[in-house]
């Protein structure tokens, strides 16, 4: 039986924010990147790469075991199409998984996590414990990735510990 709940930091993750240049359609960026660029709060997965829609023409791109120059490479690939900012150090990503993960998140974010409303590939930019987060559902276990600005990690952890202890 899997653990009812586990929380693991996702280290060695390449992270970049990508913003389309004026008049560039998502399809053009999509063609250059080889990943579907969602036009809504959705996450798409291709290999170790995840693309999360965070706003109109704006995405957060993460890559597992990324090379240190991940963002620079991305910038070259998207030259003229999009602006790229390295956020590999900016965000800390926590992976929450297990049957209780849905309840844990439901106690943090004012987002409907019912499977009919939020399932694999759903994403949201919201707030947990007064901390801004970007989060997306990875699978139906369920597994969620929660990205927050790195400086908030300890405060987020405090909320998580209290909430999990109260399960």
């Amino acid at each position, binding site marked *: 039986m899997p653990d009812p709940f586990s929380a693991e930091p996702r280290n060695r993750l390449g992270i970049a*924010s990508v*913003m*389309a*240049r*004026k*008049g560039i359609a998502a399809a053009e960026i999509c063609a250059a990147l080889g990943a579907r660029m969602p036009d809504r709060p959705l996450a798409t997965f291709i290999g170790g790469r995840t693309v999360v829609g965070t706003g109109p023409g704006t995405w957060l791109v993460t890559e597992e075991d990324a090379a*240190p*120059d991940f*963002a*620079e490479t991305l910038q070259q690939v998207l030259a003229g199409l*999009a*602006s*790229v*900012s*390295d*956020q*590999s*150090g*900016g*965000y800390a990503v926590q992976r929450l998984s297990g049957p209780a993960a849905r309840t844990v998140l*439901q*106690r*943090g*974010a*004012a*987002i*409907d996590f*019912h499977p009919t*409303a939020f399932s694999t590939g759903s994403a949201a930019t919201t707030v947990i*414990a*007064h*901390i801004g987060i970007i989060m997306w559902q990875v699978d139906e276990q369920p597994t969620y990735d929660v990205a927050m*600005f*790195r*400086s*908030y*990690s*300890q*405060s*987020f952890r*405090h*909320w998580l510990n*209290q*909430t999990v*202890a*109260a399960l």
Partner: protein
Amino acid sequence: MSRSPNGGLIDRSKSLSFTFDGTSYSGFEGDTLASALVANDVRLIGRSFKYHRPRGILTAGSEEPNALITLRTGARAEPNTRATVTPLFDGLEATSQNRWPSLRFDAMAVNQLFAPIFVAGFYYKTFMWPAAFWEKLYEPLIRRAAGLGRLSMLPDPDHYDREHGFCDLLVIGGGPAGLAAALTAGRAGLRVILADEDVRPGGRLLAEHLEIDDTPGAAWAELVVAELTALPNVNVLGRTTVFGVYDGCEYAAVERLTDHLAHTYPAQPRQRLWKIVAKRAVLATGAIERPLVFGGNDRPGVMTTSAVSTYVNRFAALPGRRAVVFTASDSGWQTALDLLAAGVSVAAVIDPRETAPIAAEALLKAGADILLGARLCDAIGAPVRKVEVHLADGRRRRIACDLVAMGGGWNPAIGLGSNMGARPIWSDAAQSFLLDQTPPGFVAAGAAAGRLALHEALNDGVTQGAAAAEALGMPALKPRFAASDEPASGRPLWHVLGRGKAFVDFQHDVTDKDIALSAREGFVSIEHFKRYTTLGMATDQGKTSQLNGHALLAAATGKSIAEAGTILSRAPYQPVAIGLLAGPHRETHFRPERHTASHHWAIAQGATFVDAGQWKRAQWFARPGEKDWMETVNREVTMTRNGVGICDVSTLGKIDVHGPDAAALLDRLYINTFSTLSIGKARYGVMLRDDGIVMDDGTTTRLAEDSFFVTTTTVNAARVMQHIDYARHVLWPGLDVQATSVTEQWSTYAVAGPHSRALLAQALPGIDLSNEALPFMAAAKFRWNDAPARIFRLSFSGELAFEVSVPATHGDTLIRHLFEIGRTFDAVPYGTEALGVMRIEKGHLAGNELNGMTTAGDLGMARMMSKKKDFIGRVMAARPGLADLKRPSLVGLIPVDQSKQIRAGAHLLPPDAPRTTAYDQGYVTSACWSPTVGHAIALGLLVDGPNRHGERITVHDPVRGADVQAEVCNPVFVDPEGVRVRA
């Protein structure tokens, strides 16, 4: 003991012991504290608020105004807890309130003798004069007498959880209507949340002898709850009170998780705050029975008829031996029958109406007098011993009894429905106020909608449940329930003239006379009346008193009740603990903290931290033996200026501004020009608000033709980001420019001092740090430990200095590396205080100067304002008041007597001028003791300042000390030629 040998929803095999005022009693699983006290013949529970009258238990529900006790002891003691909704647990400790020295003998009861002066408006009239008495005498006196229970004054040891609920239908209340609505909608597949405040749903079905589909009511409720619980789309929340309705179909509720338990484990939350977003909601909160207003109606032993039925039927607890029932509604007659069935003798049933609603043979046979067209005018004794009745024929009669059950009729419990501001309107049919306009998607059902009879309530629940399903396009089958139509009418009786005090608001001790007084004194608007008499303003929000009060006011002013109107109810509908609303956000976790990558390293270095917004920044790094922070800061400054110091400046805001039009946008944001900046160079910039006042400053580096790296002050980081987004989204959507906050991406360390270049040459081998390769205000990219890194030749300290940036994931490694190498150079960590001293020594600006009141001209940057381009704030900055050359402008200040201190905030006045506002010429913005020049220095804003260097001025500080004479000077105290930064 007054417990029936059988019956009731209590588990006689589970005996629970508890104490009340130190005396031990026992009850059963399933009891409330109130029912257990009833069963133990405890009739005196507390003393009233103003007159300290002895009070018992009035109701059996959450509307209780009298039976308020302090539950538990120590830090967990909770005052003003309603005994009627406190589930009994083993070891429960309860204490009575508002009495001294004891409940039975209370010294303050003497207030009753002075009742004629303690009327409504007493405080307003009495404590008026002399004014000086207010602070010293009146207020402490009032405060001592006010309030009921006392707080423990200890930190709350409990945890409070939070959850967000989403549903198609929220059903508020689990009585017959609520259960029917939830079942109908749940079977149709809707996502349903059913919130019921009781320990078990059922509402009146638990308290009355009712049958549905030939099943006893309580058993029927249990079956329905079992079915609902089994449905995956239904969430049944017991012990949960919905206490507020808000915009956007949001509801707040409290789920009581451990309040009914004797013991909890340490992390177990006591209560959970629910924020529920519901497409639709059914208000099935039932109705609250009105007391009758007659003399002595507050005496222990006088209860509502529904309370009597509840104690007798649900708890098998007998509140008396010989009862008198005084009722103006049909339900009271059922109470009389309930009493008979439980073996309590009924002396009389008194009804002001002329005919009995039921055949009264059983009552007559049992010896009860049926007194129609009669009124009970006084209850006598505490606890009650007898009553005086005004008979239909005008005679008076006394009847001995130890229990009075009074029933004035039913008020639909519609409080939540007016949370959003719609005033309920009077219904002649229901003889009560009902919801007219409701919050979106919100509808009342059953007794809450004035449909009191059981079968009506069930049908109404079904109808509303089905309506919710149909609104969502989901067909619903409407279950049919067979239930009898019990008599449920009545004719309100608002007032009976008696000899004793007749209470309307029990918790706030408001009597019929107070209401008459309010009307006489002109407080005739329903809202003025409420505030003048305080009726309905106690913690029970007047659930039992509101309508009686409004009816009496209407009578006193010659209006109909419909004309007099009623008040609105505000959230919380029931009292909630403040800890519930705070959740985990208390003490040091009141708000989140932000830590830089060097945080743990800084802790290990003994840093003292200071708050900068949410950031924790190292303020200084004290060493053993240093006697105060001044000594520490002086050392940090001196070691930096003479050697090398390192400071974490990661908290500064950082924004990537990218795109072909990035330079064009920056030209419009800043007063100076960035389009002319060459790649690999940084420039200091100042931006204004729309109104021409300085908003923020910082350096911006051009990393590529279409790529700028903007920095902001720490506190303005989010504001500048918003400002940039506003400019590119709203002001100039045509520009092709993108912006992203990268504050958190980079850990940045300022390495400052004459030895900084040598230190970095060793720490970052392979980078050319020479003046030729990296002159002042230049920047370069490099790689460090494989990661992208940047170095900037910038200086806030005025020394030869570099800022090194690496991804925050490498920040901890870099700080340790820098100090490892720095050992050879005796490198010193310095905090924000030393940073501040060094920037004042250099006349650099910070938040004290960028204070939201200063113009670029005030701060000596008038010439930076480009005349060749437009920028935000340009036009407004040219307003005569802002462009006035005589405005207070930036100067330096040095005390004439160099042993003196200057303090920030002090005012600047001509030496001979009177110390009055009329002669005020400016103020000190920043001040410190400078270890570099060896005396105090300060920056200030002085009228015509730049033209007054060399003048003497008085620094006037009436708050913290005597005046200091100072000399006005150039605001750059150290290296005014700027030689060091270019070293």
